[in-house]
């Protein structure tokens, strides 16, 4: 039933072949076509700007007050590209292989190869826009190394690479606004997808200032609405990050894949109190020079600096001598959890591990470390009031990136014709685990280089399609459903705030569908989430009115998170293997390494919504590996 539509030809030629044979639209016809782009992060802004440059009419939506604030800004470390400027053996193929292996062989060869291939042009594009990537004294671009690879292919702009790439994409978008090709709708939230004759033809959006419900029609709809890691409440994500756009598209028929594949970032600040709203990420680049350890003895209460060298357990260096502190994120996070669960955690809640720079400072000098990580150390001090030059940083794994999302084919089109999903909102390129600095890359590549080919290819078949206006009954129907939900929220007058439900759900998922899962924990979680949803439906309390109302916004998002959380558990339960970020305790070796099952689970799980309270239906897209040989993913 589901066809990934991978082009013919050798792996290295597939994307060229696609571009050579994709259908074009002549410039005069482009201005007759409207495209809605929801989300203004790197994927959304770059896609909207590029399609506008080509001549299409774009409507761009975001819930923030400006397109520039989308959560892509928060990415710190860098963006990967196979430029091989370091002459250290990098190539498109090697980057492809690292990414496929990093994803634990649960992504499509053709997609991943295309990602590596397009990485080259992305750096060129960003530099042309004025992104101030770090440079060497000779004036050429600098690179650094990131987790899970042995070459230096990461381009960076201090600790704010995401922010700088975002500014580039935002400015490209603003340029098209002034050219009259993009109309922006800020402080707008998409609340439903409108379908006509089985195709995506528009959205229902709410103006978050006035409360007005608006209808917008188009020839295609692009969802670039980011990841849903905020389902765990405590996460590295922004407070507004949500699943609502993709979830509502899912309920209209778009399949969801890899739903339970959530990356827990190993270097985040630990939770220290009950009222905490956020787990701040400290860039993974810190692992280039920081050494990770815990006390050897469980329950060691000494001041960290007083614990002598021989009583420290550098567990990553011990378990994974080849990659050591630069082991991939899933492995590093799980190893931390293993030590914390064994009672060796540090900090007031015993939920953290040490990231220690004393050796690096001794070897390289304080000035060098300040130059590399000064802003991160300052941030640490601001949040914790602790000088990490003098004592170890405390870090802990936190929910971070969702590899899962809407299922898309090679065109980045969902199972709904005319509905595209880009960036973190789709499931595509990272398999079961994403490598550091590949997320900025994927969102940019999707938006600048892939969708601007594949969307016109789809639209070429739509030129003669009947014109749909917002008077179509499908809009009225979708609007009615949206209005009813909002009215229900406002009239409930229960006992608990939206945050109460969100926090309860988050805790439950951390415990039962988090860094590790078991059949038992997942079955329990499904029952508990169903009960929580029921309570939400009756006991939610929203104050205020339909105008600016953050509680009303949260209610819709939490409602969707509750349904998504249940699907995450079904997905994790069904996949009886451990792969990447998905670690089922039943499937591990004697020394605690993941056991993948290629015989039975070498496929993409694509879930279909069957209605509220009903079990979702599983579809499978077999993963075919023609080029790489499946191997045990070892970083030992």
């Amino acid at each position, binding site marked *: 039933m589901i066809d990934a539509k991978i082009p013919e030809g050798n792996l290295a030629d597939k994307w060229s072949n696609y571009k050579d044979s994709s259908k074009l639209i002549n410039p005069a016809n482009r201005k007759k076509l409207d495209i809605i782009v929801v989300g203004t992060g790197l994927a959304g802004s770059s896609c909207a700007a590029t399609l506008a440059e080509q001549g299409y009419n774009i409507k761009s939506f975001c819930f*923030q007050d400006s397109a520039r604030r989308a959560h892509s800004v928060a990415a710190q470390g860098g963006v990967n590209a196979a430029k091989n400027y370091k002459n250290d053996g990098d190539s498109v193929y090697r980057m492809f292989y690292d990414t496929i292996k990093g994803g634990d062989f649960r992504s499509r060869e053709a997609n991943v190869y295309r990602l590596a291939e397009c990485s080259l042009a992305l750096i*060129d594009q960003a530099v042309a*826009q004025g992104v101030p990537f770090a440079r060497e004294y000779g004036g050429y671009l600098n690179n650094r190394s990131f987790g899970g690879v042995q070459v230096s292919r990461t381009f960076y702009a201090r600790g704010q690479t995401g922010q*700088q790439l975002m500014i580039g994409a935002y400015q490209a978008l*603003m340029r098209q606004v002034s050219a009259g090709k993009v109309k922006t709708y800020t402080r707008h939230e998409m609340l439903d997808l409108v379908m006509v004759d089985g195709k995506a033809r528009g959205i229902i959006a709410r103006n978050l200032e006035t409360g007005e419900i608006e209808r917008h029609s188009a020839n295609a709809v692009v969802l670039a609405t980011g990841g849903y890691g905020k389902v765990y409440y405590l996460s590295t994500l922004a407070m507004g990050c949500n699943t609502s756009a993709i979830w509502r598209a899912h309920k209209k028929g778009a399949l969801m894949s890899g739903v339970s594949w959530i990356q827990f970032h190993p270097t985040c600040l630990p939770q220290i109190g009950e009222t905490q709203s956020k787990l701040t990420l400290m860039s993974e680049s810190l692992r280039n020079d920081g050494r990770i350890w815990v006390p050897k003895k469980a329950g060691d209460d000494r001041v960290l600096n007083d614990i002598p060298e021989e009583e420290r357990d550098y567990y990553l260096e011990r378990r994974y001598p080849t990659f050591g502190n630069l082991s991939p994120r899933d492995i590093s996070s799980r190893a931390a959890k293993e030590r914390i669960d064994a009672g060796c955690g540090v900090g007031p809640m015993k939920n953290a591990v040490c990231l220690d720079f004393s050796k690096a400072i001794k070897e390289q000098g304080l000035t060098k470390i300040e130059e590399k990580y000064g802003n991160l150390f300052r941030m640490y001090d601001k949040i914790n009031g602790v000088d990490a030059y003098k004592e170890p940083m405390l870090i802990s794994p936190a929910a971070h990136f969702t590899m899962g999302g809407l299922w898309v084919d090679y065109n980045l089109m969902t199972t709904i014709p005319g509905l595209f999903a880009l960036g973190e909102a789709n499931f595509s390129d990272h398999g079961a685990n994403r490598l550091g600095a590949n997320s900025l890359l994927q969102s940019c590549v999707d938006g600048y280089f892939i969708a601007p080919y594949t969307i016109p290819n789809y639209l070429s078949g739509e030129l003669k399609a009947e014109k749909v206006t917002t008077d179509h009954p499908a809009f009225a129907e979708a609007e009615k459903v949206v209005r009813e939900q909002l009215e229900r929220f406002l009239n409930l007058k229960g006992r608990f705030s939206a945050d109460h439900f969100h926090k309860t759900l988050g805790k439950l998922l951390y415990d039962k569908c988090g860094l590790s899962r078991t059949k038992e924990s997942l079955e329990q979680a499904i029952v508990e989430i169903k009960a929580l949803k029921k309570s939400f439906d009756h006991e939610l309390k929203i104050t205020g009115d339909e105008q600016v109302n953050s509680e009303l916004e949260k209610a819709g998002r939490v409602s969707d998170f509750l349904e998504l959380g249940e699907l995450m558990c079904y997905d994790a339960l069904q996949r009886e293997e451990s792969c990447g970020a998905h670690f089922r305790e039943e499937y591990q070796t004697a020394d605690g390494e993941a056991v993948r099952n290629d015989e039975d689970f070498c496929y993409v799980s694509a879930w279909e919504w069957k209605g509220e309270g009903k079990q979702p239906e599983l579809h499978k897209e077999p993963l075919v590996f023609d080029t790489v040989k499946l191997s045990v993913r070892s970083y030992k």
Partner: protein
Amino acid sequence: MKLYLKVWRQENRESKGDMVSYVVEGISEHMSFLEMLDLLNERLIQKGERVIEFDHDCREGICGACGMMINGRAHGPLSGTTTCQLHMRSFKDGETVYIEPFRAAAFPVLRDLKIDRSGFDHIIQSGGYISASTGQAPESNSIPIAHETTEAAFDAAACIGCGACVATCKNSSAALFTSAKISHLVLLPQGKLEAADRVIKMVSQMDAEGFGHCSNTEACEVECPQEISVLHIGRMNYQYNKALILKK
């Protein structure tokens, strides 16, 4: 700890707002300032009252969404810090804290502490970009740029667009915001070609949005969470005059 808050409450753009008093008990010094407001809002919900609306998103100091005047200072007492990165250990038990929106004629209040900063978007739209469409870029290493030049451009590009500079300026000037963008782009070789046109358009847009003029008090630099330097304003003025003289 216990704080006495005086918070600006305003229904919408048209209505008149005023300061409302709240007493908040049970605050931990580890909480961020916004988490303290979360706590108060949770209690307001329990009482059936409308919550205090404020903009916030990333809560790690980079998105630029949050920002309020705290005891008369943009983003509160610390320098180089956004409101979300301010923690309660910066306050004393029993203190009275005044919380107001960023105020400027060009930043109308939407509700409570939420404001409309779309003027900043309009300034960028008027010319705050390099015209490089997707597909036009040359090989990235074909234009070497000196390390110091990139770093200087970065210092300007680090602006997060929060509006603290405008809020703290007695003239509500957007000179620091606008000049940071002009500096970022004019320092780089890619951005020089459009420099003259850009600076004229951006400066006139800044005026059209209703932002005031810069009278060099330098308060903006003091309150900027990214510590953007007022020297960019000097560069903007130089570029502006140069552009006017050389205008064909």
